[in-house]
């Protein structure tokens, strides 16, 4: 009887041990640790600049959660980031670092802008056409980079960065052409037609007390689920992951890695471009002349990193970043610098990048304990 008890004890202990071990292998745990350290480091900077970290973080928190209207704003801020995050995450699965999401985002919103201003169509059709235009623009933008890589062996990171700047100046050029530019000065385009907007109906906006509440988040969630589905359930996903995990074995197994590269990079570009379209059609309605890069694409890299490149994770990571951006913009109400958000996000990225060090230290410590 006693013996049996012991055995039971041993099994329970093993189960506990196994589940702790599993937990320690989870990326989510290290993401949470990284976020914690991000806030600690941000707090140190606030404190050394003479602000109370506690007060600032309370403000940050209340700016996001105190009213439904604010929460909706956070979601609106998050929507384009979910798209660019997905774009980066998807290409990363194939071993490509899409630092060009920024440019793809710009050409996407630019394509949607042109269709949104120059074409006159009934609402639903108009929206569809804008989105298709953005999708196509992003695909082509990224496909060109893929061609440079596959055909000429040019490292995609270089081409992506240059294509970002081409998109940047292309946008500034088009915004200033006569048919697009707003009549009577200003540094922005006309607003897109009402029929090209994706705002929620007036009645819903009234309930939410937010006149920019839009359908974008639903599109983002659909996109995330679609990418998850492609990666895990389709032959395309099989190819993309195989090329990303072991290009040699993929080639040996008869997978055409060039074709896979073309398809996957185009799709990745399209995702970032959709982010641009949704941002335009749901929130900004126009494009201003850029003075500097807006950063949605680069922020997408952070989102993908926080999400460990998991498509569904990108939704939550995007919401987190969106809330930080929106809440952070309110920090100047208490005179605290908004830039602290960049410090926090930067620190999080840094700690996620070195998370394997934590993993090593924690597992090692546990092993030592076990040994004793």
């Amino acid at each position: 009887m006693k013996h049996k008890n012991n055995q039971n004890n041993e099994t329970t202990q093993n189960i506990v041990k196994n589940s702790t071990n599993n937990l320690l292998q989870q990326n989510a745990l290290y993401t949470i640790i990284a976020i914690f350290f991000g806030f600690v480091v941000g707090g140190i900077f606030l404190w050394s600049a003479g602000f109370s970290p506690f007060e600032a973080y309370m403000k940050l928190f209340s700016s996001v959660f105190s009213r439904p209207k604010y929460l909706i704003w956070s979601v609106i801020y998050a929507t384009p980031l979910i798209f660019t995050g997905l774009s980066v995450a998807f290409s990363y699965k194939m071993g490509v670092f899409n630092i060009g999401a920024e440019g793809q985002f710009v050409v996407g919103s630019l394509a949607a802008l042109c269709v949104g201003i120059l074409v006159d169509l009934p609402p639903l059709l108009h929206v569809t056409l804008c989105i298709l235009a953005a999708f196509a623009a992003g695909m082509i933008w990224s496909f060109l980079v893929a061609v440079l890589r596959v055909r000429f062996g040019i490292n995609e990171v270089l081409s992506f960065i240059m294509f970002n700047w081409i998109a940047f100046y292309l946008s500034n050029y088009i915004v200033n052409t006569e048919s697009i530019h707003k009549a009577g000065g200003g540094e922005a385009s006309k607003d897109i037609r009402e029929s090209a907007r994706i705002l929620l109906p007036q009645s819903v906006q009234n309930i939410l007390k937010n006149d920019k509440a839009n359908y974008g988040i639903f599109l983002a969630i659909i996109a995330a689920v679609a990418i998850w589905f492609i990666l895990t359930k389709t032959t395309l996903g099989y190819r993309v992951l195989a090329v990303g995990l072991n290009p040699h074995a993929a080639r040996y197994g008869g997978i055409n890695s060039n074709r896979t590269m073309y398809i996957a990079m185009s799709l990745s570009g399209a995702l970032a471009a959709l982010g641009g379209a949704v941002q335009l059609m749901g929130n900004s309605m126009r494009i201003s002349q850029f003075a500097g890069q807006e950063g949605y694409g680069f922020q997408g890299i952070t989102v993908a990193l926080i999400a460990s490149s998991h498509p569904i994770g990108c939704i939550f990571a995007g919401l987190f970043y969106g809330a930080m951006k929106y809440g952070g913009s309110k920090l100047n109400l208490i005179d605290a610098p908004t830039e602290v958000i960049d410090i926090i996000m930067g620190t999080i990225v840094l700690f996620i990048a070195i998370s394997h060090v934590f993993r090593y230290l924690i597992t090692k410590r546990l092993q030592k304990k076990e040994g004793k």
Partner: protein
Amino acid sequence: MEKTSHIDPNVVAVQMTDIVKKFGNFVANDHISLTVHKGEVHAILGENGAGKSTLMNILYGLYKPTSGSISIFGSPVHIESPRQAIELGIGMVHQHFMLVEPFTVTENIILGMEPTNGITVDIKKARRQVLELSERYGMHVDPDAKIEDISVGMQQRVEILKVLYRGANILILDEPTSSLTPQEIEELIDIIHNLTADGKTVLLITHKLKEIKAAADKCTIIRQGKYIDTVDVQAVSEHELASMMVGRDVQFKVDKKPIEPGEVIIDVQDLHARDYRGVEVLKGLNLKVRRGEIVGLAGVDGNGQTELVEILTGLRKGESGKVIIEGKDLLNADAHKLFDNGVSSIPADRQKHGLVLDYSVAYNLVLQNYERPPFSKHGILKKDAIFQHAAELVDKFDIRGADGGIKEAGKLSGGNQQKIIIAREVTNDKDLLIAVNPTRGLDVGAIEFVHRYIVEQRNKNKAVLLVSFELDEIMSLSDRIEVIHNGRIVGSVTGEQADEKVLGLMMAGGGNHETQE
């Protein structure tokens, strides 16, 4: 092979007593004891996963034993880390080398303990020390060569020098011959004897019986974590060693029923190709394989067999010539097309080409077939079918540790990884099977398994091209042996006529074919 023993029976270099090591519920070492005298070459023999590496990792301080004690040269020690092992004069050469490729031999050897004069590294002194060590043990290593430019055999000597440079008296060599050519193996055995002549003690982890016979004085056999026996190598036969290791009688010879070879399946004609440096490596190679025969391609590494296989599996382009497979010229077709036209293969490097290690076993089993029914339909993967297929093959081919196919391929042992590939390629049921070093790094049990399936393909009236550096393997399996030298087939013999000496001469270039110049 001449062998003189350098054992000093009065000095016990390593004494491991009653070592137990548990990983969770799994007992990797179950009360194993080991006594090694100074100057002895002591082999640790066991199948993959038997626990021999665990035991040596305990000695090298990588693992802590659950219980048991260790003494080195008579004094009891607790080895907590490799650093401490090194201080005690224990050095380990791992199976996979840990060298910095763009660095020179000298730089690699001194890495971490560079001799300095003031604040700069005294590279001249280091070079002199390396040269001296190398010559003392007959290693002939060029201290100025870069690692990326020297052969695998030389790289291994650099690893051994690294250990000696750190003052090791007891050397642990983990599967040292798994990636060496027959010549390199012989040279390594000479080096081992030079080491023991100088008073060093060598522990050899291996599952290759022939090398134990050639190199070792004593052999300790471990099976499933348990100590089986320690034997005097001279007193036992290879066959006895194998049976002790596996725990049952082992069949070395494969049963082959006589078959009359049928039509030609692959006909390589006047094939020319260059390697990445632009050097011509295939210079008009001709080769035919017919239904119902195993053709063994023997040759010293670097004579064009790698390039030939790469062309035949769609990984490399040839320059001119023909590769006719069942009537179609498929020179420079890609892997997909070759597969569709009847070529399956067991690649030389299973981890690089054969498997996507992070994919599940099930996914790896459909690497060429995921786009075909029943594994997918309209671009959607049918996971039920994929996993059912996996469950069947895991069962049929006895792939261990696969968890019904869910486990990632990279988490399986080398032998079981190879079984995944064999299962996949044999199930593909193509007319031609190209097997390249199919048993590299495998233990006796797994080798037997692989050989059985290769012969079964032939018996099913398929064509088999076997490329291997293991001459024994070629001789025991092939119906016909073709010898490749300098990019051409220089000789051929039938399986029955095969003789190691004759083949060796041909491999060195003295073939029985007319030269075609």
